């Protein structure tokens, strides 16, 4: 432990500045303080506040926004006296009985289960290709990483045009292969697929970057050894590259799963800020939370949904880690 300076292990003159060898050293905490304060205010406090909100019934209803704020202030002190607010599980009850919450979960799971595997597989292929000693490698890398530095709302609007039924590029492509045009944005059942395609594209650059760094950590000598033994590209890929990249692939899949569960900003621009073409068919978990909070001003319900989403992501990620450990052993 760096925080405890022990005399026995330090022989140089610096030791003298730490007079009592086993006493807690305050100095490192001072350096960390600004960061800790920031985290406490902007991360830790909101997390616990959401947890608290989720158990307050009637919050935001039928009171107006301002009144609700005043009430939470009172709640901080003691109880919800006089504000018609009570502690309870009512928010959870409402959310779990709400059919839109369940359709939001269904959409979210569909999104996660499609986007994560497909984007990871594609990203592995692209990362391996970008890792080759090819001409214009720098150019290709820039092109592939461009989506990352572009605002997702702006990009979403571009995709809206790509998905357009009459003159969108995607339908044009389908038509050249003899496939009939698909009304990606106008037909409710196709909406989710449009979002999934966009999601795959959106998540690829970060995935490729992480996988590239993983690839660059693989020692060249493994490839040389395999080549001397006569291994061909495909065998090298499946027997050496992929297994050695497995830790990075696992990391990428967990990160992508978490970020895909939070899908929201890609739906917003595609459907002018509503959840799908009918306004209700494409709720996702975060979209549901957003609507409860900002549109319906039901803070308690939003908080309850957020808490539920947290536990779903938590369980899913744990399962994923357990599964990966099992596979790697």
């Amino acid at each position, binding site marked *: 432990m760096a925080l405890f300076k022990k005399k026995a292990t330090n022989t140089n003159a610096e030791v003298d500045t730490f007079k009592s060898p086993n006493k807690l050293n305050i100095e490192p905490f001072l350096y960390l303080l600004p960061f800790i304060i920031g985290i406490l205010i902007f991360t830790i406090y909101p997390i616990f506040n959401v947890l608290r909100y989720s158990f307050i019934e009637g919050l935001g209803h039928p009171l107006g926004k301002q009144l609700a704020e005043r009430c939470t202030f009172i709640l901080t002190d003691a109880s919800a006296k006089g504000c018609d607010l009570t502690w309870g599980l009512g928010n959870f009850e409402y959310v779990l009985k709400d059919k839109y919450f369940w359709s939001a979960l269904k959409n979210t799971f569909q999104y996660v289960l499609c986007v994560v595997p497909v984007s990871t597989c594609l990203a592995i292929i692209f990362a391996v290709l970008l890792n080759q000693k090819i001409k214009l490698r720098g150019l290709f890398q820039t092109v592939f990483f461009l989506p990352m530095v572009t605002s997702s709302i702006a990009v979403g609007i571009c995709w809206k045009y790509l998905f357009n039924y009459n003159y969108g590029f995607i339908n044009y492509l389908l038509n050249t292969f003899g496939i009939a045009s698909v009304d990606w944005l106008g037909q409710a059942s196709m909406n989710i697929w449009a979002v999934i395609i966009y999601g795959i594209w959106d998540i690829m650059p970060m995935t490729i970057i992480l996988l590239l760094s993983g690839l660059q950590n693989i*020692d060249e*000598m*493994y490839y*040389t*050894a*395999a*080549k*001397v*033994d*006569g*291994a*061909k590209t495909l*065998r090298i890929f499946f*027997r*050496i590259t992929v*297994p*050695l990249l*497995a830790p990075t692939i696992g990391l990428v899949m967990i990160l992508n799963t978490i970020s895909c569960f939070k899908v929201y900003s890609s739906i917003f621009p595609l459907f002018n800020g509503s959840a799908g073409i009918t306004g209700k068919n494409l709720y996702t978990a975060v979209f549901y939370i957003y609507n409860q909070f900002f549109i319906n001003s039901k803070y308690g319900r939003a908080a309850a949904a957020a808490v539920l989403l947290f536990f779903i992501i938590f369980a899913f990620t744990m399962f994923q880690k357990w599964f990966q450990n099992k596979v790697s052993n």
Partner: protein
Amino acid sequence: MKIKIEHLTKRFGNFTAVDDFSTTFEDGELIALLGPSGCGKSTMLNMLSGILPVTEGKIYFDDDDVTDVSPDKRGVGLVFQNYALYPHMTVLQNICFPLEIQKMPKEERIAKAKEMAKLVHVDEFLDRKPGQLSGGQQQRVAIARALVKKPRLLLLDEPLSNLDARLRLEMREEIRRIQQETGITTVFVTHDQEEAMSISDHIVLMKLGVKQQYAEPQELYNDPANNFVADFLGNPPINKIFGVAKGGNFELEDGSASFPFELCSKVAEGTKVTLGIRAESAYPVATAEEAAFVGEVSSTYAMGKEELGYIKIGNQEFRAYIASELGYKKGDAINVGFKDRGVFLFVTETGERVR
């Protein structure tokens, strides 16, 4: 398999790593490529394996020209300096991998791999991952993996450099044993003269990409082709006294001493020459008549039955072993005689040996 190398040259841009290298390695021998770092010995090995394309020259395996043959078609087994064992595969899978590439049936390749594991004594660890093995065991697995496909030539790149001192001794004997049991022509790279001397049949000594001498270890030591070879081999390093040839005499550079030395008459008068004397080749003699020259003991260090002494001639010093019972002390005059072996004369400028 016999390996013939003709005028082999490798250039990286303007830098010549291997320069006009020709030699023949006999079948079934253990050959050491020896030299200081940067002398081109690893480049040589990589050209033999086919990993590096050659710039000029030819390589023949027996009578086949393999200069432009890809590594996997040359039938070479390669052991990397860091072993390059696949960390995600078990020992057995590692050894099987070359056979898996050759699409050998599973039972057959497992049988062969086990046989090979037995040869290198790793058959107890077949189910372990390389990370669970010691350096010496990893080395053995790497050798097994290189040998399992029955290569015509085994190449080892600095095979012992990653091992600690004790393991090094053990593994070099193991390499010798495995090589003799399989009878496979083996070339290994090393910068350690002792390693090369102790196990190889022939040594190629290289310097700055140029072959200095290709000979049996003892011959290299007893009959060096030039100053560099004499300098590189031997511990303690060979003594060097710098002087000038004058009328059949060896005269120290500053003229502070002079004594007759036969070989000095074979070079032009006034040529700068270096006298190389191995520490064990100079010894005290009873009378000044038998002595090559008379020096002065400048210091002695007890080393058991012998003492390593520094003897001064003129104002240059050299090391020699002096029997401790003779009782020489600092400042004593000493009659120094030369043995027939281990005393060489070189032309200082070119390093060329005067014979």
